[in-house]
């Protein structure tokens, strides 16, 4: 059994993990950069070790310092959170080589799913629908144009080692294809050290739907239903909700069963997420699998009641999942707004500073996952997300109304945030309808700019 966990992360996810550890009677070790000496996760953990200079590569990505801290504090396991080292197969192996438990899936799955072409091929084998495109890598322009003919434009050329919106080119015709192909390969080589590229059809205005997977090391793979993450600005999720309002129950079952099929096909054994595109003809296509806990996991916890971090830890301990698929039921609806320290009037540029006054909302059906406090200084080195505001309701509309009043109550003074943007979004008819697709947020921002709501 795990007695002590080192949390190789910072901010609200580190705090989130510490909370479940406390519930489970597991000791915690926080790590921090010199810029994070006053951070909340450092205060809440049982121990804390400084692991480097502010820049993430010197601290939170410094594998040696993280591992030394784990070994020297007598930790049994490392939880990577999300970002940083969480999807680094080499790190996961190193953790295991040190005799520690990596709280996440086995390193082979991380590696397999990290290469988008291999993941696609595996899914085709497993009989899960993938986005139409090339089966494997495209070696030449001619080969690519041939495939383009069969699937049709518009399409995307994507770097196999990319992800999160990076290493992608959209092309509308053959001439554009010819124009960008070599550049993208060179770019991929420079950025990811791998110039492999492949082709995927580009869908216009799809829904981004993802299914939460929970699996153990004894072959059990469960789904915890889906989240609708279509509200994105530049491929970054801003608002998420669970379940997806647009799915019929039949479609929900189909997508969730395909997600389980994906996880089973690769021997998945932890918490993870399978992302799908859902097009206007109600078809879904596998996009990728995130082999880690995700930012938006609380909305799934709200509608299912399942503690994902607890089960992730238990699963890493080799414990069998204590529930079966029938035990997992959707109750109500949950929404998450990512509160970012950013200035929507300056194209959402990150804005640091000191929080002079902080007043979080409270009461029924409100959950706050955050690592800020009164007087906290947001360091300029990391993510601008400073709070996840989560609301729940019996119905989707009730959750929206609760979010409105929670946003009204929330006060964060001293730094510029996107609270107002969320508040306006919660009153937008397209959002309220729930049919919005991945293009909506950008259009809505454009609309706000045009009517000069950004003063």
């Amino acid at each position: 059994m795990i007695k002590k966990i080192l949390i190789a992360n910072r901010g609200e996810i580190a705090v989130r993990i510490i909370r479940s550890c406390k519930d489970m009677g597991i000791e915690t070790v926080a790590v921090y950069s010199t810029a994070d000496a006053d951070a909340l996760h450092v205060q809440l953990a049982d121990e804390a070790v400084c692991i480097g200079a502010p820049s993430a590569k010197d601290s939170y990505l410094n594998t040696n310092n993280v591992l030394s801290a784990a070994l020297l504090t007598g930790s049994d396991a490392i939880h990577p959170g999300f970002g940083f080292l969480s999807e680094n197969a080499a790190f996961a192996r190193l953790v295991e080589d040190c005799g520690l438990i990596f709280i996440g899936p086995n390193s082979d799955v991380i590696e397999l799913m990290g290469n988008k072409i291999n993941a696609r091929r595996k899914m085709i084998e497993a009989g899960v629908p993938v986005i139409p495109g090339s089966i494997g890598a495209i070696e030449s322009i001619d080969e690519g144009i041939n495939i383009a003919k069969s699937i049709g434009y518009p399409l995307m050329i994507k770097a196999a080692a990319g992800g999160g919106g990076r290493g992608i080119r959209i092309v509308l015709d053959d001439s554009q294809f010819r124009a960008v192909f070599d550049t993208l390969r060179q770019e991929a080589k420079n950025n990811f050290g791998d110039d492999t590229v492949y082709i995927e059809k580009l869908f216009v205005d799809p829904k981004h739907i993802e299914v939460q997977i929970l699996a153990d090391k004894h072959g059990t793979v469960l789904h915890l239903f889906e989240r609708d993450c279509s509200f994105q600005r530049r491929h970054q999720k801003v608002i998420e909700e669970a379940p997806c309002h647009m799915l019929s129950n039949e479609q929900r079952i189909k997508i969730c069963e395909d997600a389980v099929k994906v996880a089973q096909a690769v021997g998945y054994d932890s918490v993870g997420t399978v992302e799908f595109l859902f097009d206007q003809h109600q078809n879904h296509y596998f996009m990728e699998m995130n082999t880690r806990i995700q930012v938006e996991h609380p909305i799934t916890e709200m509608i299912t009641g399942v503690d994902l971090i607890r089960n992730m830890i238990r699963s890493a301990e080799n414990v069998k999942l204590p529930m079966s698929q029938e035990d997992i039921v959707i109750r109500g609806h949950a929404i998450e707004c990512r509160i970012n320290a950013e200035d929507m009037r300056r194209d959402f540029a990150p804005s640091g500073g000191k929080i002079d006054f902080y007043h979080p909302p409270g009461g029924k059906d409100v959950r706050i996952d955050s690592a800020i406090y009164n007087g906290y200084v947001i360091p300029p080195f990391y993510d601008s997300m400073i709070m996840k505001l989560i609301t729940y309701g019996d119905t989707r509309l009730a959750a929206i109304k609760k979010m409105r009043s929670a946003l009204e109550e929330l006060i964060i003074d001293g730094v510029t945030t996107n609270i107002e943007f969320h508040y306006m979004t919660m009153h937008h008819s397209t959002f309220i309808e729930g049919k919005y697709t991945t293009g909506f947020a950008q259009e809505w921002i454009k609309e706000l700019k045009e009517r000069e709501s950004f003063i």
Partner: protein
Amino acid sequence: MKIENIEQIIKLFERSTVSKMEIESGDLKIKLEKDSGETGNYVRIPNVSSPTLVVEPDSDTLVKAPLVGTFYGAVNPQSAPFVQIGEFVSAGTVLCLIEAMKVMNEIKAPVEGVVLEILGRNGEMVAYDQPLIRLGEST
């Protein structure tokens, strides 16, 4: 009184609105004072330059840990320590070792000077930026 305790006391003092504080306990005496006209620095810009070498106001040099690991003042328990208090060392002299991932890392004197204090404790963990050895001017 351990270093951590002093650190805690300094933090307490910093967080408080107190402007002067003196504590005596046993053979220990601490005197703390804040700048008057203290404005409450708005954004604390963390020091991003090389943190292993910090020049103290009184021109002492504090050698800090450049990585997380186990501190050793000697090659092994039977050996003589690399340096002793009062000893003069030239720049580049090995002051101590930090073991990390089964590799021994030599920590060398960045400047010449007299060893004033050895702050690391044999066989114990040091975190990044933790003070190891204080070097004074070689007068």
